[in-house]
């Protein structure tokens, strides 16, 4: 039992090993340092053990130097813990954050992180606003909410929202995206932002939808929908509101839907990556009601009912291929 205490390095030795390792990486490392290190290594077998452990530890970080891996690490690491920041420096830090915010305002991921409300993948959330209007956020959605001086304004950064607007004739309720606005007095409608296009769909009452470029508006009645997209004059199309808003019950209704389109929809709710070749799946159509709150189960069902094989490699990577 005593054996382990004599061969494994103690806290002092571990600190010394860390200090030597740090010194030997320095630009100003001298021959005196190297001699000193050689002597230290020879003095005790535990010194060498500790030093080798330090070297192994150091090389573990090699993998993280690749850009995507490094960025992923930076994305998950929490910023400097607030508790440690003293009140006096907090204001200064806040200024720094605001400056950083201004500089980064054009990069979408940062804007989404700073959004007033957002949902993760597979998550939905309903918020009650100051005027008792309700906004339901679909999976992977981010919004900014501005309710001041009678103004009712929501900015949709990404994703899909359902609005149940409380009636207030004095103050129009406006949803804004990069592509345009949807304006209502009291109604139910959805706004979805995807691939630089915004879709507005009305369930109840009326909504005015306006594109930014070209500046043009359409008025939508229940069961009508429009796409706001740069360079396109908005047109009205007829849709089934029950089908379009089925996501609010974590359902997707497909009627002869191309399989890739269904997979793209499922991807929005699925935490792992769905990998498939769109052209290889051409000609496969699906119909039915699909559950969005258990995508793994839905994928399993697709594998049984359509001519594809679905192989999960890890919970985070699933490959869909046509059956041979």
């Amino acid at each position: 039992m005593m054996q382990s205490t004599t061969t494994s390095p103690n806290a002092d030795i571990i600190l010394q090993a860390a200090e030597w390792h740090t010194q030997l990486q320095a630009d100003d490392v001298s021959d005196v340092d190297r001699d000193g290190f050689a002597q230290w290594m020879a003095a005790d077998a535990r010194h060498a053990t500790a030093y080798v452990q330090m070297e192994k530890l150091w090389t573990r970080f090699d993998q993280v130097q690749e850009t995507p891996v490094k960025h992923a690490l930076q994305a998950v690491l929490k910023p400097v813990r607030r508790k440690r920041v003293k009140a006096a420096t907090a204001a200064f830090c806040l200024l720094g954050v605001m400056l950083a915010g201004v500089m980064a305002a054009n990069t979408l991921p940062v804007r989404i992180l700073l959004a007033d409300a957002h949902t993760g993948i597979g998550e939905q959330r309903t918020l009650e606003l100051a005027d008792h209007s309700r906004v339901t956020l679909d999976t992977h959605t981010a919004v900014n909410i501005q309710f001041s001086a009678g103004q009712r304004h929501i900015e949709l950064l990404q994703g899909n929202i359902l609005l149940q607007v409380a009636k207030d004739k004095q103050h129009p309720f406006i949803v804004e995206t990069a592509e345009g606005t949807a304006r209502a007095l009291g109604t139910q409608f959805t706004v979805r932002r995807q691939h630089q296009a915004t879709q507005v769909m009305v369930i109840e009452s009326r909504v005015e939808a306006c594109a930014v470029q070209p500046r043009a508006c359409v008025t939508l009645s229940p069961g009508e929908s429009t796409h706001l997209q740069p360079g396109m004059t908005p047109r009205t199309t007829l849709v089934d509101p029950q089908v379009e808003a089925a996501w609010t019950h974590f359902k997707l209704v497909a009627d002869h839907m191309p399989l890739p389109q269904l997979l793209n929809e499922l991807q929005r709710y699925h935490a792992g990556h769905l990998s498939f070749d769109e052209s290889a799946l051409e000609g496969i159509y699906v119909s039915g009601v699909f559950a969005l709150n258990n995508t793994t189960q839905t994928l399993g069902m697709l594998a049984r009912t359509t001519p594809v094989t679905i192989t999960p490699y890890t919970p985070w990577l699933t490959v869909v291929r046509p059956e041979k």
Partner: protein
Amino acid sequence: MSANELALQQAVKHLYTHHHQWLRHWLRRKLGCGELASDMVQDTFCRLLSLSRADLEALQTPRAYLTTIATRLMIDRSRRQKIEQAYLDILALTHADHYAVSPEQHWEVIETLTLIAGMLESMPDKPRQAFMLSRLENLTYLEISQVLGVSVSMVKQYIARAMVHCHHIIHGENA
């Protein structure tokens, strides 16, 4: 040595017989998934094998201890999922060719990232900043001293402290 191992296995077996069903229920309530709960029960008891027999026998409140381990495992798991998602998001954003990577390599990257994120998250701020600037951004100690506004010898102390911290996590604090 083997008698000792046998005794340890006996002690774990004893705990398993008396508490695994209860732990499974507890995890099932937390996770809302029976299959996952069963997996985590196995993982929790696997962790027990790394304890000494004396420690195991001295356990006053085995259930509290089991839930502590299980909670830690659940945190690890959610951290891993977050990391995986961040990694996939960045690959998608940069249009990196993810499919040049085999599932095994992918798994390994996430494994390493999870370990490293765990080490860095629990590190005090200054050592962490100094260490990351050195190890990930390849800045010299002089450059780091300018970024952080401290002396070069302070930078070296920070980095050595960071290394000690990582060592504790990998090899255990009582080493």
